[in-house]
């Protein structure tokens, strides 16, 4: 998926794309997106996948779910 948010939406024939699409919709941690961001920003990843997931879940607890 392109970094501008206009990329492919994922199709049944593209399991990876579909998986990523679902992860984004439900707000699951997306380490690939983080790595992509680091590559574009020109710096190595500062977090391992495990650290990234832990930090992601910690911040998720501050989000609001509507009634």
């Amino acid at each position: 998926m392109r970094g501008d948010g206009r990329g492919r939406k994922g199709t049944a024939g593209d399991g990876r794309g579909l998986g990523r699409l679902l992860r984004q919709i439900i707000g699951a941690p997306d380490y690939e997106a983080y790595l992509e961001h680091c590559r574009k920003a020109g710096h190595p990843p500062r977090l391992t996948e495990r650290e990234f997931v832990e930090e992601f879940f910690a911040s998720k607890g501050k989000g609001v779910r509507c009634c």
Partner: protein
Amino acid sequence: MPRLARGILWLAVAALGAVAFGILALVRGETVSAAWLVIAAVCTYAVAFRFYSRFIATRVFQLDPRRATPAERLSNGRDFVPTNKWVLFGHHFAAIAGAGPLVGPVLAAQFGFLPGTLWLVIGVVLGGAVQDFTILCCSVRRDGRSLGQMAREEINPVAGMTTMVAVLSIMIILLAVLALIVVNALKASPWGFFTIACTVPIALLMGWWMRVWRPGRVGEASGAGAVLLILALVGGGWVANHPIGAAFTYTGPALTWMIVGYGFIASVLPVWMLLAPRDYLSTFLKIATIVVLAVAILILLPPLRMPALTPFATLGEGPVFAGKIFPFAFITIACGAISGFHALVASGTTPKMLAHEPDARLIGYGGMLMESFVGVMAMIAACTLEPGVYFAMNTTPAALAGAADVLKTAGFVVTPVQMQALAAQMGETTLIARTGGAPSLAVGMAHIFAGVTGVLGGKAATALWYHFAIMFEALFILTTIDAGTRVGRFMLQEILGRVWPRFGETSWYPSIVLSSALVVAGWGYFLYQGVIDPLGGINSLWPLFGIANQLLALVALCVATTIMIKMGKQRYAWITVAPLAWLTAITMTAGWQKVFSADPKLGFLAHAASLAASADPRAPRLIFNDHLNTVMALGFMAVVALLIVVSLREWWLILSRRKAATLTETPFVESAYAR
């Protein structure tokens, strides 16, 4: 498409919607198909999205694809991530859609299907979607700032503090009323209780799976969780018919203590352990069920058995909740028409993920239209029930006896034998006085789902569908209770942290435990009073929740209006001022009537006075609760008045040039995507 053809197409859509509204309005006693409700709603949404949201996007905010959004400028691969607009639409919708748009319309069905549907459709296009969209636009232009921050910076610190109080208050009432819905759905229901109890170990397993065993593999863990959930649902049926079922059968007060304990533990545990996995599970279930329900309704197009208007619309003596259409239809249905809570989401995660400014129209305005459609589906599900069944399920025996004459005259009667047969069909011992809306929605959904599986040649399995619907509702209500208690705890820590800085450290365990206990005690008390209330609890708590939710919408609309005036767009201020004026009228009228009405079924003070000479040992507690509810309602009204005054003052100062219109908008930066 040529301009002329487009014009003809939109005229046809508008005409079709008008015809559908005409049929709904003119029907008198005949059975009407749900298709007309769907057509009226969809045509209105289409016209409003095409024209009104575009008008706001181009004339007021001038959304610019060349302007970089916070997701692009502050991209960090974590919370600031440019996201495909359809993905973000799904994400935003999952965050705003909860039990509110499902339960509110079911309760408002006591007036008939027409008032609630009109409010859902008209309220959303002129109010709810406008609020969500404008707040999203305002937040995107301010690096994704929250509603509270914008109120403080754009209006003044008093408005900022008012927002914080409003959010905390709504959180307490919201959690109490949602927990009450779950308690009423699960009491004396071993099948329901067993299924919901199983979701706790399932969530713990999922949490361990996606954090410890296979970090980040949410899909795998959710798949396993969904399979276990289905097993729990089927297992619940076995438990209910086995002697062991007695161990899963509880009264309302016992369930209250359990849910209070659950809320406390969920708030204290790390997010990954219970909240996050439950959230993923409920999100999957929520989206899937809503889609299936929509498809099922469109396939079956069931007839509406509830009339367009019931006698309670004008009498104001409804057994589900007291009060006339104005203002109580508009307080009862908040989510689905306009919900202040959405402003927190529209100024929370969503603005940090918006890739292009113009996408805000689809996500902010379009997302809320979708939630309204969920509300319309809930209204259809409730109105497909026989009115007698609907009132028997949603009313306490005392209230039912009080409304017996009106119900009999209107033909809304049901025999105990019929209710017993329905309960047996749903796998329950009784469905009488299952107040709160969730069980009657579940019966409506079960009939619809069973109708589809019957059409497809499968086994109807109505009892399984009923408990599936109960599980679906309870699962995301419990998720909201988890998340809401935690957010309330953070807010309390922030407020008390100003007095004692150590208390404000969100990772300091004594502070976590104490603040969680205080928040849980707050909503737990209101929950308990609802459970023991002879009128069923919903009668007093749901209007308070509606008032609190609309209060938050008032904050959001005041912020949006202030920003529009500061932008020099005061000639378009009516866009937000019109729903603001309407909300002020209904909030203040409802608050006044709930406190001062001479009818003991409606007014808290009159109810307390009616109990003064009572020999009932519960009377002192009930009187105290009435006085507490009075204080809450008056507090909400005072906050509304304060907010309106400070906002009007700010607008007058700016418009009369006594104060400079200082915007805190982030300066224009060209988007790399536009080059």
